């Protein structure tokens, strides 16, 4: 029988720091704070960690980031690594950590990520740093801010499938409706499609409210083997499937502007878990910009190509809809501290699957797909999490 990660590891602790504008903590401190809170949630001490994964910070970068965090805590892990795949980082890290546990390198891994893009850097510098994902010779000289790269994708999707600015705006509206039910979300005032369309144009067709936030914050999870998971106080949330897809780094070298390597990531995750898109109760989809959610809904098999715009506009992904997406409020309305952004999609999914999501708890939350991507629709990773150890 082929070896598989299906059901072999589980998340047994999860926590977020405060998010938004956090002037009282630097990026490293936010990372430490996230770890302290996740360990408290799991009910273990720092000395029980034998693996540590972090992502580097833009505001407080270290050449050896994870080692710096281990040293700060005075822990001495067997497995210690910093990852960097942009927004996809969180789930590629989970993929690697689960593999490290399954192969016996370590038993209990903390994945912790934080940054302070809002308070630790000037706004100008935060935006310029993020746009440095562009090719230094063949893209960056033309002066694209990050929204412009995604605008190229949006324009192509509109041209090819008839997606409209109203469809894009509907993503922002549905996501805000979820955020209104989350007391920790940064943006909780209701918005309408008209509000999105009348907000300042950044890079056609993307308006200000089609773009995600720039924030401070962090989160951490504790991952352990299925055998050990039973000893923890929290109901374990099992990793049932994980898959990656890497299509390009620079959008000018992409195979397609409108179909991404989310296709491969999703197929690999579904195959491992032995399920399909119709089995999912909800999803958290990377939403750095509104068109990304539409392409992910399509590429991950929740809608046919070109049908995601009308699907979202009909309210399916909103609270109470047939398929809730980004139940915490996403990067658009909850928080977005850069590379750690999808950590919050992960911790939210853990809360939902445990039944601990409070006011916004979904009625049906047994199986979920969480997807993130980094670069400009470049590095993709899908994970499937469940309440039970098999789907």
């Amino acid at each position, binding site marked *: 029988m082929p070896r598989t990660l299906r059901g072999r590891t589980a998340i047994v602790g999860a926590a977020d720091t405060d998010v938004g504008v956090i002037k009282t903590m630097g990026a490293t401190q936010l990372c430490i704070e996230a770890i302290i809170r996740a360990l408290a949630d799991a009910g273990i001490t720092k000395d029980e960690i034998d693996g540590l994964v972090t992502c580097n910070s833009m505001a407080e970068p270290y050449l050896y980031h994870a080692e710096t965090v281990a040293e700060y805590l005075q822990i001495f892990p067997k497995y210690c690594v910093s990852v960097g795949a942009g927004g996809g980082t969180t789930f590629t890290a989970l993929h690697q950590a689960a593999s490290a546990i399954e192969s016996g390198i370590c038993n209990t891994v903390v994945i912790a990520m934080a940054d302070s893009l809002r308070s630790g850097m000037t706004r100008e510098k935060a935006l310029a740093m993020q746009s440095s994902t562009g090719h230094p*010779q*063949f893209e960056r000289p033309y002066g694209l801010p990050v929204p412009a790269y995604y605008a190229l994708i949006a324009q192509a999707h509109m041209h090819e499938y008839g997606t409209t600015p109203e469809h894009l705006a509907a993503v922002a509206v549905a996501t805000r409706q979820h955020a209104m039910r989350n007391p920790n979300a940064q943006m909780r005032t209701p918005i309408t499609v008209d509000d999105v369309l009348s907000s300042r144009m950044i890079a056609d067709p993307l308006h200000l409210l089609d773009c995600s936030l720039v924030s401070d914050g962090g989160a951490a999870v504790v991952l352990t083997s299925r055998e050990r998971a039973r000893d923890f106080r929290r109901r374990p949330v099992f990793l049932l499937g994980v898959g990656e897809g890497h299509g390009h780094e620079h959008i000018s070298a992409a195979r397609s502007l409108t179909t991404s390597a989310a296709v491969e990531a999703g197929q690999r995750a579904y195959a491992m878990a032995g399920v399909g898109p119709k089995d999912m109760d909800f999803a958290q989809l990377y939403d750095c910009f509104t068109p990304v959610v539409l392409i992910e809904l399509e590429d991950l098999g929740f809608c046919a190509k070109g049908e995601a715009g009308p699907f979202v506009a009909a309210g399916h992904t909103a609270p109470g809809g047939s398929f809730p997406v980004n139940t915490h409020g996403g990067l658009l309305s909850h928080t977005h501290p850069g590379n750690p952004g999808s950590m919050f999609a992960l911790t939210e999914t853990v809360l939902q699957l445990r039944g601990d999501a409070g006011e916004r708890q979904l009625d049906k939350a047994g199986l979920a797909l969480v997807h993130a991507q980094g670069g400009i629709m470049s590095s993709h990773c899908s994970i499937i999490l469940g309440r039970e150890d098999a789907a």
Partner: protein
Amino acid sequence: MTDILAKPVPVASPETAEYWSGAKRHELLIQHCSSCGHHQFYPRVLCTACSGRMLTWVRASGRGTIRSYTVVRRPVSEAYAPDVPYVVALVALAEGPSMMSRIVAIDPEAVRIGLAVEVTFQDWTDAVSVPVFRAAG
């Protein structure tokens, strides 16, 4: 460390030096594989189609069509503020490869996917010229 807020003037690497010297002469150079006939951009040491290393530089026609575009209203940094609003686009060259560029000398509202464009060059410094595109004449 280079200033992240400064305008990034391209710095040639060994495998791209020929491309940038062509741009200086206002010629758009791309690579052609002598083994399989594939054209590619950006410059690489191997052919991405056949993995061969028999690559030669050829002058592209400079003609292409817009695959996608956007009008940047909020510049990436202050260095680009004088250009706002500016059109950036992915251009599919007649030879096949795509490249990022600017569309110049056009009303931004008139830009469309599929528009035929042709290369022109902007002299940025004494040593560096950058290819941009305008509506084909």
